[in-house]
C-alpha cells in the first residue's frame, strides 16, 4: 500500500472534500428516490463508500483529458464536471437528461467534459480507452485517458488485451481498478489468482500501485504520479484503489455474502466523514466553512431533483432518434 502524503493547499483539500460530499449526497438522494418509487428501472449502482476514488483521481486531470466510466459511474461523472440537474433528469428518464432519457443510470455521461461514457458491460470500457489513447498520440496532444473499472473486470479478457496493447504502444492511459472487494456477491479474493490486483501489472511490464481508496489524498498522490507518467509519454500505469461499496450491488442485494461487522469496520473508515474531521483537526477548514459547503451541496441536490422532476418526458414518437445521425 502506498500511503504518501502530499502537501496540499487548504483550497485543494476543501475542493476534494466538496467533490466527495457532492457524490455522497447525490447518491444518498438517488437511493432515497429509488426506494420511494420515484425512480424506475434497474436500481442504480451506488458508489457510496467509493467517493475518494472518483474525487481523488479526477482532481488530477485537465478539462480536456478523457475518462471512461463503469456501471457504478455517477461519481466519475460528477467529478468530471457534470451538472446534477441533467444527471437527475437522466435518472428520471427525462428529455433534459444528459442522454435525453435514452441511457439511464448506467450510461450517464457528459461527453463535452471528456467523459466518453459509462458502461453496463463489465470490462468493456478498456478497449475503448485504447482508441482514445491512440487518437491522442496521433493528434500529438498532451491529453491523458483514465479508464475506471471494477475488480471483477480484471478477470475479463478485455483487461488482458487492453493492458498489453497499452504498454506495447506506450499509450497515455491510467488504468484505475476500483477494487471494492466484491463482484456482486463474489469476493474477488476467491476468484483472482493474484490477491493484490496491482500485481497483474508485472505481467504487462508497467508500474502497478495499490492505494488506500478510503484516503482521498493518498488516491490523489498516486494518481498524480500515474497521470504525470502518462502525460510525459512514459506509458500506462495500473492503479488499484482499495475501496468498499457500503450499499449492495443494487437495491435488491441484501449482502448475505458479508457480515454487518465487516461493513461497520469499513464505515469507521468512511472517506467523507473521516476527511471532514481531518480537515478540521488539521486546521485546513473550519467547522463553519464546512457546514457552508454541506448546505451548498444540499441546495445543489435539491435544485437538481426539482429540475429533473419538472422536466418533460421524451416524446414517445421520438424513440428512434439518435440511432443514426441525421444526414
Amino acid at each position, binding site marked *: 500500500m502506498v500511503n504518501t502524503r502530499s502537501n496540499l493547499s487548504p483550497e485543494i483539500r476543501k475542493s476534494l472534500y466538496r467533490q466527495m460530499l457532492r457524490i455522497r449526497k447525490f447518491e444518498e438522494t438517488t437511493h432515497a428516490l429509488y426506494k420511494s418509487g420515484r425512480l424506475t428501472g434497474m436500481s442504480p449502482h451506488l458508489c457510496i463508500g467509493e467517493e475518494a476514488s472518483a474525487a481523488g483521481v479526477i482532481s488530477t486531470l485537465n478539462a480536456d483529458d478523457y475518462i471512461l466510466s463503469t456501471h457504478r459511474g455517477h461519481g466519475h461523472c460528477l467529478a468530471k464536471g457534470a451538472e446534477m440537474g441533467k444527471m437527475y433528469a437522466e435518472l428520471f428518464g427525462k428529455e433534459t437528461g*444528459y442522454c435525453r432519457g435514452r441511457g439511464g443510470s448506467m450510461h450517464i455521461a457528459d461527453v463535452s467534459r471528456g467523459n*466518453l461514457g459509462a458502461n453496463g458491460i463489465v470490462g468493456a470500457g478498456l*478497449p475503448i480507452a485504447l*482508441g482514445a489513447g*491512440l487518437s491522442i498520440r496521433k493528434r500529438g496532444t498532451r491529453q491523458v485517458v483514465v479508464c475506471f473499472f471494477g475488480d471483477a473486470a480484471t478477470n475479463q479478457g478485455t483487461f488482458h*488485451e487492453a493492458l498489453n496493447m497499452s504498454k506495447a504502444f506506450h499509450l497515455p492511459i491510467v488504468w484505475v481498478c476500483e477494487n471494492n472487494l466484491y463482484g456482486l456477491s463474489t469476493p474477488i479474493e476467491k476468484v483472482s489468482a493474484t490477491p493484490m490486483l496491482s500485481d497483474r501489472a508485472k505481467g504487462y511490464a508497467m508500474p502497478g500501485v495499490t492505494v488506500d481508496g478510503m484516503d482521498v489524498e493518498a488516491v490523489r498522490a498516486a494518481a498524480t504520479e500515474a497521470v504525470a507518467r502518462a502525460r510525459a509519454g512514459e506509458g500506462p500505469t495500473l492503479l488499484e484503489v482499495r475501496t468498499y461499496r457500503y450499499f449492495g450491488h443494487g437495491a435488491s442485494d441484501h449482502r448475505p455474502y458479508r457480515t454487518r461487522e465487516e461493513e461497520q469496520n469499513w464505515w469507521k473508515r468512511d472517506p467523507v466523514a473521516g476527511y471532514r474531521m481531518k480537515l478540521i483537526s488539521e486546521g485546513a477548514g473550519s467547522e463553519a466553512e464546512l457546514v457552508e459547503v454541506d448546505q451548498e451541496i444540499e441546495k445543489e441536490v435539491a435544485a437538481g431533483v426539482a429540475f429533473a422532476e419538472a422536466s418533460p418526458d421524451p416524446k414517445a414518437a421520438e424513440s428512434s432518434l439518435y440511432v443514426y445521425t441525421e444526414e
Partner: protein
Amino acid sequence: MAERTYREAIIEAMAEEMRRDERVVLIGEDVGKFGGAMGASKGLFEEFGAGRVIDTPISEAAIIGSGLGMALTGQRPIAELMFIDFSGVCMDQILNQVAKVRYMLGGQTQVPLVIRSQAGAGKGYAAQHSQSLEAWFTHVPGLKVVMPATPRDAKGLLKSAIRDNNPVMFIEHKLLYNNKGDVPGDPEFLIPLGKAEIKREGQDITLVSHSRQVLNCLDAATELAKKGIEAEVIDLRTLRPMDFEAIQASVEKTNRFVYVEEGYPQCGIAAEVVARVAEHCFELLDLPPIRISAKDTPIPFARVLEQETIPSVHRIVETVWAARHWAVHA
C-alpha cells in the same frame, strides 16, 4: 475508368480517402507492411506510415475498441477484422458498444467507424473461416451493413462508408478479391449506402441477392434465359438500411420472388426479405416466395462437402425451374 480487381478497388478507396481526410486511419492485424491477410491494404503502410496504418496484436476486442475510441475522439478509423468469423471474439464491442454508444448517450456523439472484414466459403477454410454472418449485424439497430459484389461497388460503397458518420460493417467476400471490373478513377466517385442496383433486367422472376451470390444469380439468369425465363437480378449491396422499395418495384413487375444468399437459412437475410415481401407484396405474388440459402450446417472442409452447402448456379436454376409450374406466363 480503369480495370481493377476487387482487392485493388478496396485499396484504392482507402488510399483516396486517407489522402482526402487526415483523420482516416487503418487498424488491424497484419494490415501494415504485410498488406493484410487478403492483401487488401497493400501499399497503404508505405504511403501513410505507421501512424495511420497500425498493426495490432491478435486482440480483436482491442481492435474494435480502438476503432471506437478513436471515432469518439475525432478520428475516422477503419478497423479490419481478418475474418468475419472472428467477430465472435469481439462481439460485445460491436453489439453493445459500437452500435449503441450514440443512442445510449442521447446523440451526444457519433461513431464514424468502418469495420472491414471478409466472409464466405469456397476456399476450403472450414467451419471457423468460411461463414457468412451478415444477418447477425443486420439484426442490430445502430449498425449499417454493406456487402459489395463487384470492384466498382466495392470502391464506391467503401468510400461512402468511410465518409458516413455511423458505424458500418463493410463485409467483403474472400472469393471476389481477384475479380476484375471497370472502376471509376474520380476521387469523388461514391455509391450511396442503402441503394440496391438492378444488375440485370427481366420480367419473369426477381432474383435478389448480395455479395458473391449476385454473380451466381447473374449466371443463373443467363441459363434461365436459354430456357425462356427472363430473370431480373437485384443486388441489394447494403443490407442495412435495406432498399426494399427496389425489391417491391421489381416484384410488381415479375410477381415472383427468390432470395439467394450464402448465409445460414434460419433467421437469415433471405428470411427477413421474404417476410417483408409477404407483408407488403402478398397480393402481387403468383408464386410463394423462395429462399435459397446455405445448408443448415457448419461449413465443411472437403471440397465436395463445401460445394454442397453453399448455393450454386445449378441450384438456383433448378429451384427456379422446379417452381415454373406456378408461373402463369413463363
